């Protein structure tokens, strides 16, 4: 197979270098001369970052193919600069057995747009009653390390304790969707003056914070690893800050939409802004940005949640929760964190690549953009500006909340395991990517 030469990229937004990719790896960096069989990518003015890793993606397959499939979801991921996604377990059937997680993993391999790492359900059928086949999933070909009932909270304290202890056996982590169910029955949006005025049932901050507080204490008690999904309130940040100061093994994620958007958007009853946890107050978004900057929040994860048009073209209470977010993740981060001076591109490499990979025990992302590491790369044009529209999406669903909003930064190229999945800002055709990925796998075996 031919190699790639990326010329003149600003690596991590710092040194200016050429990068040579061969046989799925970065084989050289520095000042390089093009060879005859190489595809040359002119990266003048572009920033080279390690391929992004999303710890929280809903690919919907099996069962939800009307919204997304592994193919369309990983295509959207590639468009957003992601080379690995962790696929949430709330499919139908639920990913609570070795069979389902192996199937999802295999579909990812076959399509080649991104590495798909299945997340296993904590409880059978996400029912919150008994543990799923955690050991079987951990020992399967999919080698599951992240377990989550996302969409549902593991609210039973005893079950949560046992899950934390049990997955530790396999070096696993529980990714908790922190939502006290009784405090949020029928909840529609952030509880506050606006929910009172709009007549929409409130989702109080305490319902998230109370579960996080309980869970960090359980993590301390068991010595197991806890990961908190989509932190959305200033109070949650305080609890996590406290837990980290005590040395508790907790990590936390924030979504791009909670960094940028606030509850005010609910005012027009446009269900594209309905998400779980809900968009919060301006002071919450500010606290989340500060927590991401100071490391209290470890990573950014998209919670990419595709839904068909009819699930959003209805009254707020009837609409589905969730928004797509893979394609827009970097632009939102550039707009909220980089252009405000809160993070640099090297930090983006951490919060969007090496740190989520470490939490999910995904190899190959520890040392970004260096000789010898797997060639998972993304080229970002930081000078790009565009008014976001559904034309910018590459998945099957169009429920983006950013329509009409100007966002900074664009993905120009993505390379997954040495295979270009995006070039010149255009996602490469599925057949080309699948063929190249298959050839690369053969080469690696041979």
């Amino acid at each position, binding site marked *: 197979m031919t190699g790639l030469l990326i010329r003149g990229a600003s690596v991590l937004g710092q040194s200016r270098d050429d990068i040579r990719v061969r046989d799925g790896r970065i084989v050289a960096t520095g000042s390089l001369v093009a060879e005859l069989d190489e595809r040359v990518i002119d990266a003048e003015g572009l920033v080279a970052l390690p391929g992004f890793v999303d710890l929280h993606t809903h690919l919907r397959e099996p069962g939800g193919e009307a919204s997304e499939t592994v193919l369309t979801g990983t295509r959207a991921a590639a468009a957003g600069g992601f080379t690995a996604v962790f696929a949430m377990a709330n499919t139908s059937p639920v990913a609570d057995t070795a069979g389902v997680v192996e199937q999802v993993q295999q579909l990812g391999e076959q399509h080649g747009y991104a590495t798909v790492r299945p997340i296993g359900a904590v409880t059978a059928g996400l029912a919150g009653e008994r543990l799923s086949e955690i050991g079987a999933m951990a020992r399967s070909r999919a080698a599951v390390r992240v377990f989550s009932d996302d969409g549902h909270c593991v609210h039973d304290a005893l079950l949560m304790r046992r899950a934390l202890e049990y997955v530790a056996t396999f070096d696993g982590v529980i990714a908790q969707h922190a939502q006290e169910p009784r405090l949020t029955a029928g909840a529609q949006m952030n509880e*506050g003056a606006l*929910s009172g005025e709009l*007549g*929409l049932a*409130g989702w109080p901050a305490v319902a998230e914070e109370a579960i996080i507080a309980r869970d960090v204490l359980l993590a301390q008690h068991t010595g197991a690893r806890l990961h908190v999904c989509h932190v959305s309130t200033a109070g949650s940040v305080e609890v996590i800050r406290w837990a980290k100061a005590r040395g508790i093994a907790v990590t936390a994620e924030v979504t791009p939409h909670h960094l940028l958007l606030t509850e005010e958007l609910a005012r027009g*009853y446009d269900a594209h802004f309905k998400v779980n946890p809900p968009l919060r107050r301006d002071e919450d978004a500010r606290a989340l940005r500060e927590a991401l900057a100071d490391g209290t929040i470890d990573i950014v994860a998209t919670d990419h949640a595709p839904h068909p048009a*009819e699930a959003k073209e*209805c*009254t707020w*209470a009837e609409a589905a929760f969730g928004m797509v977010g893979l394609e827009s993740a970097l632009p939102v981060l550039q707009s909220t964190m980089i252009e405000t001076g809160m993070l640099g591109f090297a930090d983006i490499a951490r919060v969007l690549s090496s740190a989520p990979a470490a939490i999910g025990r995904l190899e190959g992302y520890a040392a970004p953009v260096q000789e010898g590491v797997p060639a998972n790369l993304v080229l970002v044009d930081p000078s790009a500006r565009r008014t976001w529209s559904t034309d910018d999406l590459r998945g099957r669903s169009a429920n983006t909340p950013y329509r009409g909003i100007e966002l900074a930064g664009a993905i120009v190229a993505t390379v997954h395991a040495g295979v270009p999945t995006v070039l010149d800002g255009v996602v490469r055709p599925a057949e080309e990517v699948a063929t190249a990925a298959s050839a690369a796998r053969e080469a690696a075996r041979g």
Partner: protein
Amino acid sequence: MKHLLSTRDLDRETAVSILDIAEDMARTADREVRKLPTLRGRTVVNLFFEDSTRTRLSFESAAKRLSADVITFSAKGSSVSKGESLKDTAQTLQAMGADAIVVRHHGSGAAHLLAHSGWIEAHVLNAGDGTHEHPTQALLDAFTIRQRCYGADSRGRDLSGMRVVIVGDILHSRVARSNVWLLTTLGAEVHLVAPRTLLPSGVETWPVRVHEHLESALALDVDAVMMLRIQQERMHDAFFPSAREYAREWGLTAERFAALGPDTMVMHPGPMNRGLEISSAAADSARSTVLDQVTNGVFIRMAVLYLLVAGSPEASA
């Protein structure tokens, strides 16, 4: 005015003019022929996703007295996604030539969605959306208060200097929300009384005074007491311990009614739970406006349909 979605959007001038037009409509009720030709050839659709015989009949009656063609569509219970059917149903009615759609829906924001989604061109009149607003109810309440106070001298007046106490389940009440915005816009002083469990969050930002005890509110010189219907099932969600306790603490009992000033009106949007939020002594007294509210509801709905569909007086001038 293109739509009537909430009373929050109404300014004082518009609100007073709606009440004045309703006065004109009330006058026609005394005529031998009560029907006006105003909306002849126009089609008004009542789109009710939620059962409400009273409100539906009131709107039907209002539209018929204006000579509109009236179609009533009860879209309750459908196996398809309800959201899909809201869009599809609205577009179907549009295709049939609806000039105005009166919509009642269990989801907050449904009327707003119909008006702003781009699905339809028709005028949208909110006949109650979830726990959000019920603007014609507030307008008919304001009309009733004004008429009781000023009688034939009502025209052009607002409610300055009036004191209105609203009691009960404010949290889930679209009637309370619409009344808070409208009555304060009209210059009235609004007091809310409810246990804390039934107050919406952020109520401290509303232009009202909140009381936790009914006595302290009723001790003021009150022009109108508005009792809200309490849903019995609320007690199962621990909003209050029992119906008996609710009646004792928050109900307009015969004793509390007897202690009211001689001119204090007793209002209720109906249907009433006698013995729970209101005693029969209060409901059946001469100071009760319950039946006036029903009568006035037709005039208010005639006024609003006239304004929306026939065009505002300024526009036609």
